[in-house]
């Protein structure tokens, strides 16, 4: 079930992304949830994956041959939940319980709480290892599913990421695709100033990964790239450095790291919705 057919054209995809951004901002306001900037930076990546690349069955979320997806940057759970809802895993209204007392829609995702959530995350640096295990499981059991792991750039500070970066090429995990939402910020500053991450692509290449760069807001380009890396698999794991803007889609949030923690006011929600063209 490829999914290019799910959405007729790129304009429709952009509209979907705007709708999702608007809902994320509204939910963040209503539930007083933080991490808005990092949610908005990865919306287009998630839309490209779920609507243009990954093979999933929302009506059968545990389907054995589904592609696996791990949101290793678990703090963007609100973005993920909203995309999963639009993809049909559960009603959009359920996301409004996000972060509320006793809600299964936790601020960082929990495995088995919610259809489509493949792993518990939130502590950074775990997803690439778990994803490597899933990819290894596919190899051992000769299954053809792919495993996608979405990480943040700040997450690459974690040593465990580089343990996994060594492991995956060693075991020829060509069925593993890591995507880095490279929004150039982490909680307290520029990611490249806090740790010397750059050049990320070359670092992964040197570790033995097939490495690509893409505009993480060009949904069409991402779908083309995702399709090409999964339809012409090689033995090397794939990393895609997706250049993004933290807070993407809303002028007063874009590239302003205050929105890592800030919660939008009612007025700001209205302004953001106007900019996104969503009523």
């Amino acid at each position: 079930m490829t999914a290019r057919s799910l959405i007729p054209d790129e304009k429709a995809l952009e509209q979907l992304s705007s709708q999702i951004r608007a809902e994320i901002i509204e939910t963040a306001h209503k539930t007083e949830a933080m991490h808005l900037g990092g949610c908005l930076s990865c919306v287009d990546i998630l839309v490209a994956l779920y609507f243009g690349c990954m093979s999933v069955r929302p009506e059968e979320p545990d389907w054995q041959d589904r592609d696996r997806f791990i949101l290793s940057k678990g703090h963007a759970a609100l973005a993920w939940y909203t995309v999963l809802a639009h993809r049909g895993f559960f009603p959009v209204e359920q996301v409004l319980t996000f972060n509320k007392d006793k809600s299964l829609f936790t601020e960082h995702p929990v495995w088995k709480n919610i259809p489509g959530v493949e792993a518990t995350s939130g502590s950074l640096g775990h997803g690439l290892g778990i994803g490597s295990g899933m990819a290894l499981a596919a190899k051992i059991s000769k299954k053809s599913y792919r495993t996608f792991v979405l990480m943040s750039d700040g997450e690459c500070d974690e040593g465990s990421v580089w343990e996994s970066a060594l492991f995956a090429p060693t075991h020829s995990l060509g069925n593993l695709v890591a995507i880095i939402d490279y929004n150039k910020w982490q909680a307290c500053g520029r990611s490249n100033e806090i740790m010397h991450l750059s050049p990320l692509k070359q670092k992964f290449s040197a570790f033995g990964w097939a490495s690509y760069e893409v505009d993480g807001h060009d949904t069409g380009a991402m779908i083309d790239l995702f399709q090409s890396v999964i339809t012409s698999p090689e033995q090397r794991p794939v990393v895609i450095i997706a250049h993004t803007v933290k807070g993407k889609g809303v002028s007063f949030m874009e590239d302003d790291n205050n929105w890592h923690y800030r919660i939008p006011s009612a007025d700001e929600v209205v302004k953001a919705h106007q900019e996104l063209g969503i009523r």
Partner: protein
Amino acid sequence: MRDAFSVELTDLAGSDPRIVLLMGDIGNHMFDRFKELYPDRFFNCGIAESNMISVAAGLAMNGFRPFVYTFSSFDVGRPFEQIRVDLAFQNLPVVIIGLGGGLTYSSLGPTHYICEDLAITRALPHMTVVCPADAVETRAAIRAALSEEGPVYIRIGKKNEPVIHKSLPDFVIGKGITLEEGTDICILGTGTILPAVIEAAHHLRESGIKSWVVSFHTIKPLDAGLLEEAFSDYPLVVTVEEHSLIGGLGSAIAEWISDQQIPPKGHLMRIGIPDEFLHYAVNQKTARDIYSLTPDKLAEAVRVHYSKVR
């Protein structure tokens, strides 16, 4: 014990295709047979334990039963948070084999011996913690661990430890195994200290004190039935472990006592490692002597304590 692990797991892997062995680059030829028979289920994960635990999680989430193997210092001490989130929180059936927990590798210095592993693992919800006494219990524990639905930590020694079981005992996780009957005191030992405990019990018997000696191999869950019997029928219950007095077997039983609505009659005496590190080169035998874990010193300490509580 490590050879027993290797042999047992290789045997089990023949009939259970879910078994995958992940190891952290130790034991050069130890797994040659496993590798030869099941090359697609053996992975040397390198010196990268955090990743190894996460990989085990990813395998277990897709139907496999991974066994993770390296020194306790490194597969418990290093990747605690991966164990906590990926294995314990998600309640995944991964077995962590901790080689040489306790003083086994005290000769290699402070980086290679660990007397806190039981405390660390025991604190985690969903985690089962097992400490076999010898190679026979090791084999039985591995077999039993495969039936568990959540994560299991098994602390083993290294090689050529004395064997205390002549045949395979009835080994059930969470149930202690009686090694010797006795009516005066009860001694609960866990792990490779058991041969010393048995010898100590023999010394005590020579001075007229008869001990019920138990291999209390499961630290979590505790064998509550056995504890009830021990603390109601015996004036003194002694725990012996090659582990810190903080958080191990004795500690767990002290917690159990304090949680009883009616205080048990028996007294608890805890013998283990004090809250300190060793800062010099010392082999396991000497380290046990320093910490009064030799048969003579164990017997003497118990004798003195028993004289006060009887």
